[in-house]
């Protein structure tokens, strides 16, 4: 356990350093940028007399502690962060940034968890069958070629093409939003079906692009396992082919796939920003996009920091938990 303790310390340090670095940059960048972003942004929102703006800016700066020197501000900023305060939005003044983010988070997490698991299941099973059939089957060779293509092409390219095909050419799916405007968000069947209907295209773009990788890795894993002695033994015993695949080969090949799934869960919050932008899906990605268009810097900062924190934290959690689950993982040593 000594080496695990050392590993734990290293991972914790990595997490703290990445967070410290991120917080510092997120804090510094708008303050070192030329001009006064907050004033510029407020001037855009508030149409009115100069004294009105000056007063709001002053008030705003006082709320954020911007009237003090940089070091005091920094300490204040970190203190507020620990209290869960990410500042106040300009677009929706005076709503706290954290409230707006919390409204968007379920959409992002819902979309990404569903698609990650779905594409993992589909890719793993088809990959297993393809690997079992081996390199002799023409159909599965073509499939492997297509999978390679899916793997290389980024998800937002799929999003654009899907939006065109199923939103413009064949108008089956809605082009934007998370649900039909006017519908009350609640937990009834009508609303849930509406959300699924709106999420199909965004989901499909993510599934398509991650499917290829799951397929290819499972396929090569099964091909490797096929050469093992215990498979030969099972064949010699005269077991049915299907039984050998699912009870012997599949079970042995699945572990690295599970590791892969666990690792990919780190992107479950911020992994589909661009799909959200293209489909105007009400997740965090689209939130950041609208905040950029409206120059709502506190919101951009808050959302960015939130995404970095969740990603780094999931990363950290997976890193420290996984060796406990799978003892074969060595503690970060090459």
């Amino acid at each position, binding site marked *: 356990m000594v080496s695990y303790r050392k590993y734990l310390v*290293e991972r914790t340090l990595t997490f703290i350093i990445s967070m410290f670095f991120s917080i510092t940059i997120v804090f510094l960048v708008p303050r070192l940028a030329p001009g006064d972003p907050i004033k510029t942004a407020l001037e855009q929102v508030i149409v009115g007399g100069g004294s009105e703006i000056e007063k709001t800016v002053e008030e705003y700066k006082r709320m954020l502690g911007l009237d003090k020197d940089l070091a005091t501000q920094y300490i204040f900023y970190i203190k507020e962060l620990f209290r869960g305060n990410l500042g106040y939005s300009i677009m929706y003044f005076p709503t706290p940034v954290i409230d707006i983010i919390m409204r968007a988070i379920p959409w992002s997490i819902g979309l990404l968890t569903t698609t990650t698991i779905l594409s993992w299941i589909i890719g793993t099973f088809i990959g297993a069958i393809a690997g079992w059939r081996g390199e002799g089957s023409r159909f599965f060779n073509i499939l492997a070629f297509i999978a390679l293509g899916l793997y290389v092409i980024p998800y937002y390219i799929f999003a654009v093409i899907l939006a065109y095909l199923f939103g413009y050419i064949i108008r089956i799916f809605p082009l934007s939003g998370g649900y039909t405007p006017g519908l009350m968000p609640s937990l009834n069947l009508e609303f849930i079906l509406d959300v699924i209907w709106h999420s199909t295209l965004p989901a499909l773009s993510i599934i398509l692009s991650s499917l290829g990788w799951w397929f290819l890795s499972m396929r090569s894993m099964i091909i490797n396992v096929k050469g093992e002695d215990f498979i030969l033994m099972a064949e010699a015993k005269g077991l049915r082919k299907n039984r050998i695949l699912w009870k012997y080969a599949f079970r042995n090949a699945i572990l690295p796939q599970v590791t892969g799934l666990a690792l990919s869960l780190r992107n479950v919050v911020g992994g589909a920003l661009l799909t959200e932008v293209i489909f105007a899906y009400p997740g965090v990605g689209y939130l950041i996009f609208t905040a950029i268009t409206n120059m709502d810097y506190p919101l951009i900062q808050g959302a960015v920091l939130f995404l970095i924190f969740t990603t780094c934290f999931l990363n950290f959690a997976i890193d420290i938990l996984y060796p406990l689950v799978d003892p074969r993982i060595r503690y970060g040593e090459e």
Partner: protein
Amino acid sequence: MLSYNRLERRASTLRRLFTMLFSNRIFTLGFTLFMTIIIISLIGNHLFPQEFIRVGNFLPNQPPNLEGHLLGTDSLGRDITAQLFMAVLNSLQIGLIAAAVGTALGTIVGFMSGYKGGIVDSILRIVIDAFLSIPSLIFLVLIASVVKTVDVWSVAMLLSMFSWANPARQARAQMLSLKERDFVYMARLSGMNSWEIVIKEIMPHIFAWMTANFTNAVLWAILTESGLSIMGVGPQGEITLGMMIYWALKYVALFRGLWWWWMTPVFTLIYLFISLYLMHLGMDEVFNPRLRDKRG
């Protein structure tokens, strides 16, 4: 004489490397596709006058035609063919700069970390890991959104901030395994200092790995640039493949039937990704001894 021999040997190593690469069909295919689009864009960019991409220069929304606009014009009255050539060159420029800076920086950091060992290594490794765990696109969105006037160069520099960590981690691992080899001991015994050993003895061994890594980094940088542009924080004043998609999306080209506008950058990106990936795949086959042995 001795130095001449060494030069000769290194030249022949390079030559052998290229012969090996170009005897690989996948690499050659990728390389040919890649060079084709670069050469076409270079010539095209040279032939088309600058005002072809000026806003309002032509009748907007023209579909592709043979009377001057092979790929049509956009809603801002710019010729799309001329934009494409410029975009390919700009996107590649971003990719190449970011990849070059990232690979160079990463190799130096990784080498230092692996070669020195001890406390330096511990610190550098944690910093490398920290950079790898930060989601780069999100981070870059923030910086680019505040620095309002980003151009091709500054986007490339921003991307370099994150493109060094991955090569650094790999360079470190390479160094750890190489520095224990006999020829390095030999070199040390013969009185070479650390830098000489790294440059003369270790560099040739990882040159192959560096080129494969470089290709991957170019791909990543082009991909991230498009991502940044679609988020609305790309180089607004210039034309890259990502910015072409951004403008097409902004003017709803998708749902107004202006297919020639958005399809041009989208399919060019797919083409670029595939050609770069084929090159990477081919290099992997050539340089990775385990894969090579499998093929026989």
